[in-house]
């Protein structure tokens, strides 16, 4: 009896200790998460805040997080000094065409690799895979020379086409197509459907998740690309946003308010889409992470 009460007491003591510990631990977890989230978000707040300051206000200590004198004029000034809207348009065009192109070209090749039987197919596919190992910097120099001979420097063809052909998309879609059961298409073939119809009306609709992944990945890849445009574009009318942004730097070494206004213009479109289609982005980019 006595012993059992003692046990009881010990147990209660332990459980209060434990629940106190759990609360402490939970609190610590939230503290870490919130601090971390602040570290993630504050730079963006600082970016927006600076973009609304006058140049003088950027050189004030302590720095103001909410500017006392809100100055929308920076955005006007940036768009006047640089064809920012043209950069935006170029980025949109290049990223969209490249993405649509990859969706079509990769899904067709993936269909051939997953569903058509022909001699040398597996060898060819292996060849595609092997190139995934080769870093872009290896092909960059000859690609530039190729563009030069084709007269594609400072053109949309030059910006779009070389990036449209990479083995990654074909690989991703082929893996997905292989996992689609064949029963559906067998019935369609018996009804006399062509390969093209099966591809278009059966395989593609079933492969929507993989296509969404490739869409996000290809679009982001192209939208954020800096090195390739840097190499083949020198004409400011042909610049994409990242390259155009890097030009602001040369012009306004110390006008951080103007530079941040430019950065805001480049960040907002993707951010807006991201907030609406968060899950697609996260899944797309994590799957795409196989090759970034």
């Amino acid at each position, binding site marked *: 009896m006595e012993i059992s009460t003692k046990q009881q007491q010990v147990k209660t003591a332990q459980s209060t200790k434990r629940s106190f510990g759990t609360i402490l631990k939970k609190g610590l*977890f939230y503290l870490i998460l919130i601090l*971390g989230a602040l570290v993630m978000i504050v*730079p963006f707040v600082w970016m927006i805040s600076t973009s609304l300051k006058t140049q003088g206000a950027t050189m004030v200590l302590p720095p103001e997080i909410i500017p006392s004198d809100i100055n929308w004029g920076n955005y006007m000034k940036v768009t006047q000094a640089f064809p920012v809207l043209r950069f935006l348009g170029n980025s949109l065009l290049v990223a969209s065409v490249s993405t649509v192109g990859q969706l079509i070209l990769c899904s067709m090749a993936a269909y051939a690799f997953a569903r058509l039987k022909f001699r040398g197919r597996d060898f060819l596919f292996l060849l595609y895979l092997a190139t995934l*190992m080769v870093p872009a910097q290896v*092909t960059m*120099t*000859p690609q530039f020379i190729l563009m030069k001979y084709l007269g594609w420097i400072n053109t949309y063809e030059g910006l779009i086409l070389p990036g449209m052909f990479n083995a990654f998309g074909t690989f991703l879609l082929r893996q997905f197509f292989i996992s689609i059961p064949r029963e559906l298409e067998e019935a369609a073939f018996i009804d006399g459907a062509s390969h093209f119809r099966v591809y278009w009306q059966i395989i593609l609709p079933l492969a929507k998740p993989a296509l969404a992944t490739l869409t996000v990945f290809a679009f982001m890849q192209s939208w954020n690309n800096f*090195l390739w445009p840097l190499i083949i574009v020198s004409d400011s009318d042909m610049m994409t946003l990242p390259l155009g942004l890097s030009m602001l730097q040369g012009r306004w070494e110390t006008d951080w308010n103007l530079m941040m206004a430019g950065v805001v213009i480049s960040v907002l479109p993707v951010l807006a889409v*991201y907030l609406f289609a968060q899950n697609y982005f996260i899944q797309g980019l994590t799957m795409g992470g196989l090759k970034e």
Partner: protein
Amino acid sequence: MVGDKGVKKFLVICLFLLPNFAGFIFFIGIPIFASFGLSFTEWDLISDPSWIGLENYKALLHDEEFKSALVHTLYFIVGYLPLVMTGALAIALILNKKIKGRVFFRAAYFVPVITSWVAVSLIWKWLFNPTYGLINYGLSLIGVAGPAWLQDPTWAMPAIILTSVWKDLGFVMVIYLAGLQGISPTFYEAADMDGASPTQKFRHITLPLLSSTTFFVLIISLINSFQVFDQVMIMTGGGPAGSTSVLVERIYKHAFEYYEMGYASAVSWVLFFIIFIVTVVQMKFQKRWVDYGN
């Protein structure tokens, strides 16, 4: 009849494969071979390329700038990899618990991932501004006089590493979260029955069962960090005093500033070779620590 069928089959294969394959050969296949060939030549794009055999590779051995770029790249990797991997794992472990606002936190940590490197680099360049930047202001509040960061040869690389960790943390975190969600709760339930402590559970269940995810993260992060370029180009351009010059920055400068196409190609093949060796070594050693949970 049979011939007809064969022709038709051939046409179908062509229809599906040829558009992709032609572009692939033209834009990837030929450039790979061309780059290899170029690495044995000297070419400034104006005169004809001249064959110089292994001279470019020999010159690399005595190229101090190349050597220091290699050292800086390794410095970047050694600083960046452990930080981004442990940081991302820690956040993922916390987010994997029953936490309020999970979706919000995940979204917040992921925002830098979708932002372009150029934008991120400019924002952080401003944050690292020695006089008016938010970071040195923050440091001054706790009585620390911050360094000149990107203008200081000692602190420029750490600043680039921190920026890179900030940008990629959310990406690695999401991969770890997916890995954590793949671990069956029955393992933990069994461990609870045996009275295992949280540390024991982490060491003997979470870490081993997460090892295939860790392996994946390690491989892709390593490959990516050997190719570090955008942030260096924007934030420091390789300076100050060459203290942040990295391999890809060397390739870019040799090819497109000095117009040494052959030499640039040679450096790019060395980069490929390093990445290849590191990946193969990882693949070989994975058996020792990666658990695929047969």
